[in-house]
């Protein structure tokens, strides 16, 4: 083993600031999850995200929003379908972090469970079952690309204009945090019919998907 090799290996070792990126991310998510460290033994437990109006909220929002926007732009720019799925995963995870910022903890967790853990895996599954080669490309025409880009940017500008002009009316009363129990209660009272319908729909979809994907027809 040459000395060059050893040096190379040790420098590889140095080059890997491996713990840094995950550590930063974990710290970020920690901050997103709430502002109170170590739940105090006697005090109340704060479960909302960063305190509204604080510098931390601003910092976190911009970080997560940047991540969301970058990854969603990356979704539409990627040529490779698996990378698209990866970026979609990033987007979904960032949206879940945004939900944390919006104090919708339950929704954030559900987004992680169902979307990132379930739906996305399903998509990747589909990709792997339907691709002859991972590098198979389906390129659309140039005109389509340009047209789509133009329409999307115009729409974005239009939406932005609308946001700028909008005067949002708000319901009277203050935001008082959300609890899972409240969600459950309103799911089973006000929204019980859609809830049941969604259940039936899921069942039908389950049967339908099983039927569609069946091998022996």
């Amino acid at each position, binding site marked *: 083993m040459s000395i060059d090799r050893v040096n190379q290996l040790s420098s590889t070792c140095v080059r890997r600031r491996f713990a840094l990126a995950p550590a930063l991310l974990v710290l970020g998510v920690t901050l997103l999850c709430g502002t109170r460290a170590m739940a105090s033994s006697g005090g109340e437990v704060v479960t909302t995200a960063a305190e509204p109006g604080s510098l931390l*909220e*601003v910092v976190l929002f911009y970080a997560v*929003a940047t991540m*969301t*926007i970058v990854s*969603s732009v990356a*979704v*539409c720019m990627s040529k490779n*379908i698996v990378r*698209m*799925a990866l970026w*979609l995963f990033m*987007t*979904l995870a960032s*949206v879940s972090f*945004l*939900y944390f910022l*919006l104090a*919708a903890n*339950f*929704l954030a967790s*559900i*987004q992680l469970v*169902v*979307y990132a853990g379930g*739906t996305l895996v*399903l*998509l990747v*599954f*589909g*990709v792997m*079952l*339907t691709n*002859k080669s991972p590098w198979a490309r*389906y390129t*659309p025409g140039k005109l*389509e690309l340009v047209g789509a*880009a133009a329409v*999307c*940017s115009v*729409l*974005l500008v239009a*939406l932005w204009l609308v*946001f700028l002009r*909008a005067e*949002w009316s*708000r319901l009277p*009363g203050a*935001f008082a945090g*959300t609890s899972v129990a409240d*969600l459950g209660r*309103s*799911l089973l009272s006000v929204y019980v019919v*859609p809830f049941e319908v*969604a259940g039936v729909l*899921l069942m039908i*979809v389950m049967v339908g*998907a*099983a039927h569609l*994907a069946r091998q022996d027809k």
Partner: protein
Amino acid sequence: MTIGVTHFLVVGAVMFCCGLYTMSTKRNAIGILIGVELVLNSSALNLVAFDRYMGAGRLDGQIMALFIIVLAAAEAALAVGICINVYRNLATVDVDKATQLRG
């Protein structure tokens, strides 16, 4: 400097446009599906943001977002099933090739 509903709406709008672009430029059926997921997510984000800043704790937006997640999961399951079937019959998931029923 405060984060308000508009900030989230802008993020949602960008996601929506990206999803739209993805839907309208990809020829891979699953690519289109990914675009649809983006669009659905952006609308869910909007709903939750409205709920947080304007709902006064009514939770309606969050519940809508929950339903969106449910429907998206259902839609993805079915769509992937259809894609697999299309692939089985046509050996491709290029949506431009699936023209057997075209008049």
